[in-house]
């Protein structure tokens, strides 16, 4: 029996594992199954390949959270430089990697209101490798300028060791140049063209003449993802695992 090719979500999970390569401690937000899966995949693969041990903290989880000092510990730990990677999203993300988790319109009265900034206005500054992740890739999400800056992509004249490392969407993977404050398109996922990405993105970015396809997971990675990692993930996100398995079978 031949192995079924990776689904779109499996490609996202494997891409996150690659983006996390080299990290030792990664934190994941409460409702972030794809980032959590990427981190679990890296942990499993590193074990097999004899590479560095990866520690994962899933916020709000009892089983996948080794913190013992309450809500403040993640932030203190990040402030000490102990958290290597974290994930942030946003209702809007702009071309300078500013993120908006508050809402659209003229603050404080908004057209659309989102839950709020959470820890973004701190973690974006102190975690070295922040991966911006948003599955929906559309002009309403990727705007020229956000309506409210929950956290800025770059800063000058202040102590800042953290910031955007990459932007991963349902269509493509971008890198970010902190000096030029610009995204660059690194690859488009299977079935997506450079033209599709351009049409769905509301900000300007750099792109090579020929845009490569996002790397697909190798057989070993895919087997780990479909085996051990799916099991680990089910403890945290049972509903998500159900959807993932349905996609594989489709």
């Amino acid at each position, binding site marked *: 029996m031949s192995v079924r090719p990776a689904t779109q979500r499996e490609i996202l999970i494997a891409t996150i594992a690659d983006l996390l390569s080299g990290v030792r401690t990664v934190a994941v937000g*409460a*409702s972030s199954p794809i980032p959590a899966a990427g981190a679990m995949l890296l942990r499993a693969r590193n074990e097999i390949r004899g590479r560095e041990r990866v520690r994962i903290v899933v916020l*709000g989880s*009892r089983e996948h959270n080794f*913190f*013992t*000092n*309450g*809500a*403040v510990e993640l*932030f203190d730990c990040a*402030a000490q430089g102990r958290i290597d990677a974290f994930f942030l999203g946003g209702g809007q993300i702009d071309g300078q990697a500013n993120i908006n*988790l*508050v*809402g659209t319109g003229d*603050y*404080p*009265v*908004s*057209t*659309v*209101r*989102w*839950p*709020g*900034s*959470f*820890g*973004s*206005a*701190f*973690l*974006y*500054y*102190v975690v070295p490798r922040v991966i911006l992740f948003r599955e929906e890739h559309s002009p309403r999400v990727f705007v020229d300028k956000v309506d*409210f*800056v*929950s*956290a*800025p992509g770059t*800063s000058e*004249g*202040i*102590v*800042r060791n953290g910031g955007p490392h990459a932007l991963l969407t349902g269509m493509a993977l971008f890198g970010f140049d902190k000096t030029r404050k610009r995204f660059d398109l690194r690859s488009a996922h299977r079935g997506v063209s450079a033209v599709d990405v351009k049409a769905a993105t509301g900000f300007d970015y750099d792109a090579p003449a020929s845009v490569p396809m996002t790397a697909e997971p190798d057989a070993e990675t895919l087997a780990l993802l479909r085996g051990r990692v799916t099991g680990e993930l089910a403890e945290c996100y049972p*509903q998500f695992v159900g959807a993932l398995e349905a996609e594989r079978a489709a």
Partner: protein
Amino acid sequence: MGEIVSLDELAANVRDGMSLALPIDHSGVAMAATAAIIARRPRNLHIICMPTSGIQADMLIGEGLAATVETSAVTLGEAGAAPRFTEAARSGAFRLMEATCPATLAGLIAGQKGVPFMPIRGIIGSDLMKARPDWAVINNPFAPDDSIVVVPAICPDVSLFHAPEADRFGNVRIGRNTELATMAYASKATLVTVERIIETSLLADEQSAAGVLPALYVTAIAQVTQGAWPLGLWGEYEADTAEIARYARMAKSQDGFAAYMQGFVQRLKAVA
């Protein structure tokens, strides 16, 4: 100090105009006490979410009891947006003190220490600085060219949370949710509901004493079984996700919310 009272007596401590600190969803949320407070209708509350909230803040906002809400986020998590918060925030129905989690926690720690403010990294360049005129940027007094944000101390009138157990001497087990202790240290009064009250002192041996908030900081305790429902309680029971989803659906409209709340408060009367 650590007096054991009825749920209604406990709720009576929350009065008009007070600031009320509430914990994050997974630390132990006193939902039965929230119903008891709503039944007494204190007005113009200043809700402080430590550092975010969910259905609890959404109910207090929907009932029109909150004049001010200080929060980093209000969300029902997997069940989606918090409908009453979303609607009221969008239209500016209350004063919103928009925050970021570690800033609120830093303010509370300043309150715990009895100092007027606490410095915190980050935030500079965020629009939160515009939304929060009470936050300031100062120069690090010990190093040149180092701007840093300072946030004022937070000293809530009342903190409220739910925990698995207290002993009859008023000591409360809070486990590794140490922000509950920080809330209590910083607050003028702390109200706790618990699943059970035990006879043996939690301070009797070192093992059980770790993770205990001493009675010194506890104003009143009321025993309520399933006191966090429909939210879960660590080490005790899971959240009732179907019920939270039902709330999320009904609270989309003010009428649906009113109907839900009638059932919610009546259920409390049936248990009490």
